[in-house]
């Protein structure tokens, strides 16, 4: 039998871009980055404290990557 190639690394450039962008951005929602970069209230953004706005923007970005991946039919 010919072994199936590993699926842990995407084979297409678009696939690598989507996975890399998602994981890279997701890292900003996790320790230690979220504690180092965003654990504060100032500056307030659009009337909400910084930590809340920071996470919201990243969450929207992550959803955007998923929608982009779907649009590319990945």
């Amino acid at each position, binding site marked *: 039998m010919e072994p199936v190639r*590993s699926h842990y690394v995407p*084979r297409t450039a678009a696939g690598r871009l989507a996975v890399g962008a998602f994981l890279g951005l997701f890292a900003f*929602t996790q320790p230690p980055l979220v504690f180092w970069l965003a654990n504060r209230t100032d500056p307030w953004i659009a*009337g909400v404290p910084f930590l809340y706005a920071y996470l919201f923007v990243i969450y929207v970005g992550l*959803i955007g990557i*998923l929608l982009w991946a779907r649009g590319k039919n990945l």
Partner: protein
Amino acid sequence: MEAWVVATGLIFIYLLATIVIGFVANRRMSDDLEDFLLYGRKAKFVVLYLTVCATYHSAFAFLGSGGFFYTHGIGFWAAGAWTVLVGAITYVLGSRIWALGKNFGYITPADMLADFYESDAVRVVTALVSVLFTILYIQVQAQGLGYILSVASGDRISFQLGTLILLVVAAGYLIAGGLRAVYWTDVIQGAWMYIAVWVGALVLAYELFGGPLELWKRVAAERPDLLTLPGPEGFFTPGMWFGMVIVLSFGIVFQPHLIIRYYTAASAKTIKWLGATTPIYLMTLFIPAALVGLGGALVMPDIEVADRIFPEMLFEYAPAWLTGIILAGATAAAMSTLDSILHSNMTVLTRDIYQRYMVTDADQRHYILVGRLIVVALLAVGYVLSVGTFEFLVVLVTLSGAGALQLMPAMLGVLFPSRRLTTKAGVLAGIAASMVALYATLVAWPHPLGLHGGVWGLLANFAATILVSRFTAPPTDATVERIHGAIERFVYEGDPA
């Protein structure tokens, strides 16, 4: 008319609607087991979207999340991370699970794992892990329901009676209409609960503070400790943050009721759209929850049970009709998860245990009847568990998610082809190691070194799985080629069947 009458009346009108839907679904049902258990594998996007969202978000999202913001502050906004991750997991793993289900006729998670690992032991262990840990989830939802009805009626309906009424209704429409009834009621429940949380939170924010932005300013002025990590009680340490994100994403997705939903999709495109868009619903539901919890911390700082903050605020500050509509939404949140868990446990016990090992050659109607009887038994177990003990909702959800999370190495071994194969001995050793680790790090010494016990369990699991797999026999070449070949064709050639 008194507020409790309006609130309780609206909840009962809502319950009546679900019963009617259950009977309509019953009339559309055939005597086919796959129709009863899997909606005939033809769920389209809108139905699947709302059932997945309504199932994922439960009494916990409606009551527990407000309580969590109330007690621990903005740290609970980590919830956005785990809900976005659920979307990505659905996109990548859910579509592969769907493809294998379509190819090989799988109905339960154990079907898939037992087929690949060629092991009845893997089937039984998977079924047991699936059922044992999700029974805890039945308890969470049933307790949430009892709470809601008790609060709505001003304690005129006892917690125990409220739990019983709502369990019986959920089990009733499941017995009548199978997964079709669950999906149809979930559509209403998913829409209702989303609108209810938003409307309730905004009404309270404007009524009490003059709007959401004013609310944030007041929190900063009066309770700044709620706006930074790790929160007033030091809960959201880096280890807990990371652990909750892993446990409440992978740990929920690997529960049987969500895997079964992936099997039921009409197409791969449906699943991928689901993955890309469910985080919109799942994540944004926590925005109003933050308003409720943080606002509640200002106006009702001494509430006894934090999980009750939303209904207590509604009764105090919102009109009765609105309170009723919103509490019916809370009921929807809990019932949509409860019915799905009852269904998945019934499916696992019927398919993986009864049909496999007890009565193997009966007709389809026999298995449907047995499934219905199992729902009655689960209802009884769920009721006893619910009224016997009470714990803080999120702790139970986390314990439940931590259990299902332990299927992760076995799942990855099936769904991600690689040169190093996972073996059945590796899977069994990994799950055994993880159960020991879970007991040690969730019960005996909770969350050592500040890292969530579920993650300790997963680390022990991966270590044992990888180590034992290196020295034991992998699945046969024919099985690996059949199943990993199907994944390869699905992912890179777009061939689902």
